[in-house]
């Protein structure tokens, strides 16, 4: 192995970022939706940070800013639709220390330029081939470990692993160092409570990815890094600094969110056995099951923006330079847009587009891959675990969190 291509752990290798992130997501908060509905009813724009409304400590990276939280479908859509007023520059301070200059921190025209280049690698026609070559082998390998057993915890043995293994394979990361990569990637997200550790993780991942991109520029392979190194749109290519920052973000963006979404999809279907049975019988229902899941259990509950000028939102004056949070979870359960919004119903009549992947110029770049991965995962579990059902001797899955949501366990039985 190339000497430069060795990931360095934290200077204090005992540092554990996982505990900090789990606390941050609010693992003791089972039902944030009742409070969200109550807040929305009181006022659609609250002059507070979302996490503070839930009794948590403020984000230290935005402590000097005025904060507003916006509820309801119309306001969330308005925020995402007006990037010239609601800017992504807030992520320079929130994510920048760890991730660097990612597309998440940019506005047009810079964002438009780089987004188109990165998106070219994640277009539906590009990722379609990854289903057989990349996703299915990972899914098969993991399911094979428990398919003969008759019982499993689908979170600890499957959903918390498979999207990460897929992205590790895409990036060609060494198997022996996966735990260090995962730890550093998770630490990038703790800027709100520990900027120093996030910055250290960013520096270490950055050094690795710089060396990796140099290798791929010189000798391209069939991996994602090689693809991103050579992508060209109308004569434009991705500068190395921007590419390295994107790679830093990728494990979280591609792994963490799909882990939660797949966990929630399985929890939703297993606790609604009549809908699970319908999907088992008719796999063409999987796409609408995924869309309903993304509406019903929003993976990322809020999206941050920063006002570029004085503005009025929902009748409330907001000064320039304020932090505004679009509460995606309130949009997705807005009773003015969805009948019986708290009900999980894969047969729901198509209505307003959900905000599960956000909306606007910064809509999730990996949404097509996420759908592909979830489809493959669900199909394989239904194919290989006959009569899949909840384990009646174990607690049912409980989706928790107020900023990001997932169940900690899904105990199941099946006919082995």
């Amino acid at each position: 192995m190339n000497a430069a291509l060795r990931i360095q752990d934290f200077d204090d290798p005992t540092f554990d970022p996982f505990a900090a992130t789990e606390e941050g997501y609010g693992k003791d908060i089972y039902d944030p939706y009742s409070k969200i509905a109550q807040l929305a009813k009181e006022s659609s724009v609250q002059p507070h940070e979302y996490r503070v409304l839930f009794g948590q400590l403020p984000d230290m990276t935005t402590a000097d800013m005025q904060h507003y939280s916006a509820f309801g479908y119309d306001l969330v859509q308005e925020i995402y639709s007006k990037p010239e007023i609601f800017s992504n520059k807030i992520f320079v301070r929130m994510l920048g220390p760890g991730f660097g200059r990612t597309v998440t921190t940019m506005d047009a025209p810079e964002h438009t330029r780089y987004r188109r280049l990165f998106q070219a690698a994640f277009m539906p026609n590009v990722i379609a081939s990854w289903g057989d070559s990349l996703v299915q082998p990972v899914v098969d390998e993991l399911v094979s470990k428990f398919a003969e057993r008759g019982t499993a915890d689908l979170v600890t043995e499957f959903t918390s692993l498979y999207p990460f293994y897929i992205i590790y394979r895409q990036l060609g990361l060494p198997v022996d160092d996966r735990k260090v990569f995962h730890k550093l990637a998770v630490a990038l997200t703790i800027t709100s409570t520990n900027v120093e550790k996030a910055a250290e993780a960013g520096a270490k991942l950055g050094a690795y990815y710089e060396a990796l991109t140099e290798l791929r520029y010189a000798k391209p392979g069939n991996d994602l890094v090689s693809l991103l190194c050579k992508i060209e749109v109308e004569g434009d290519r991705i500068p190395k600094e921007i590419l390295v920052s994107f790679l830093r973000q990728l494990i979280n963006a591609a792994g963490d969110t799909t882990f939660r979404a797949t966990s929630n999809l399985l929890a939703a279907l297993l606790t609604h056995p009549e809908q699970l049975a319908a999907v088992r019988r008719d796999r063409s229902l999987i796409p609408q099951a995924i869309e309903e899941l993304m509406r019903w259990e929003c993976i990322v509950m809020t999206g941050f923006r920063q006002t570029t000028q004085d503005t009025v939102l929902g009748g409330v004056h907001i000064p320039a330079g304020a932090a505004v949070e679009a509460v995606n979870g309130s949009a997705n359960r807005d009773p003015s847009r969805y009948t019986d919004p708290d009900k999980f119903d894969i047969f729901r009549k198509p209505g307003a587009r959900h905000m599960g992947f956000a909306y606007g110029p910064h809509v999730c770049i990996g949404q097509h891959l996420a759908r592909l991965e979830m489809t493959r995962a669900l199909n394989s579990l239904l194919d290989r675990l006959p009569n899949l059902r909840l384990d009646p001797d174990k607690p049912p899955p409980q989706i928790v969190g107020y900023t990001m949501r997932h169940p900690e366990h899904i105990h199941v039985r099946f006919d082995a």
Partner: protein
Amino acid sequence: MCLQCGWLYDQEKGDPVGGIPPGTAWEDVPDTWTCPDCGTPKSDFDMVEM
């Protein structure tokens, strides 16, 4: 396909929420229509083979 986010226009489905009934040919989608995912104008769509 939207070049900015990858959203696919399917003539069979149209975009009912965006005012485009199912069965509407791409040529008949008005130029003022925008991508339902990211808001990109119709002019930034391109044909792709799936």
